[in-house]
């Protein structure tokens, strides 16, 4: 259902695992490392996950998705470690009888995965800086607390 991977994600293989003769619709989402984020030129990035809870929470997310938008199968894989531009950071795939459920469940899973799983992203910029994404407030508070 959900896994954390330290090696390249293979969407093709993951897709094939969801094949089902009852499935009329397959929706997939991939998050790719892009070369800019919030005005910064990004060189690469690094994901860190706390795997035990990422798995527990990810399973909940997938179960919720398949309950809210009845589908057949859903799977998610999240990368950890260092990633280069263009690499796949997260993959979600859903099959269902009809397309509406596949789209909605897929969207639900990626939205919740981004907000709920203990996974953190550190960006390395072209100018040599680096920073943890979404952590400006804790960083600036950290600095003012020094």
């Amino acid at each position, binding site marked *: 259902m959900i896994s954390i991977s330290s090696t390249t994600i293979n969407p093709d293989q993951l897709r094939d695992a969801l094949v089902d003769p009852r499935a009329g619709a397959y929706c997939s989402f991939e998050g790719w490392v892009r070369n800019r984020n919030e005005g910064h030129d990004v060189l690469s990035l690094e994901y*860190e996950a*706390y795997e035990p809870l990422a798995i527990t929470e990810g399973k909940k997310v997938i179960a919720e998705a398949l309950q809210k938008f009845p589908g057949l199968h859903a799977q998610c894989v999240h990368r950890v470690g260092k990633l280069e531009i263009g690499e796949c950071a997260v993959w979600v795939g859903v099959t269902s009888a009809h397309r509406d459920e596949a789209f909605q469940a897929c969207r639900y899973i990626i939205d919740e995965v981004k907000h709920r*799983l203990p996974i*953190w*992203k550190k960006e390395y910029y072209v100018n040599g800086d680096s920073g*943890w994404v*979404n952590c400006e*407030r*804790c960083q600036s*508070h950290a600095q003012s607390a020094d």
Partner: protein
Amino acid sequence: MKTLTVRYFAVFRERAGLAEEVLELEASTAAEVFAATRHRHGSEEPLGHCKVAINDEMASWDSPVADGDIILLFPPVAGG
């Protein structure tokens, strides 16, 4: 006093310069552990975007902590 294991993740670990430590604290809630370790993680706002887990279960900031608990302090997540 309670003996608590506190684990720091991502930016918190970087700031703390360590991943885990065992502390003797008076804390009765997760929020109090967060406050008592502010000199480590450096974050002012426990009720903001940060999360906490106790013994590998997601918890809330007002969850009670017991002697021997492992408290995981999570900075704002950014998966995907």
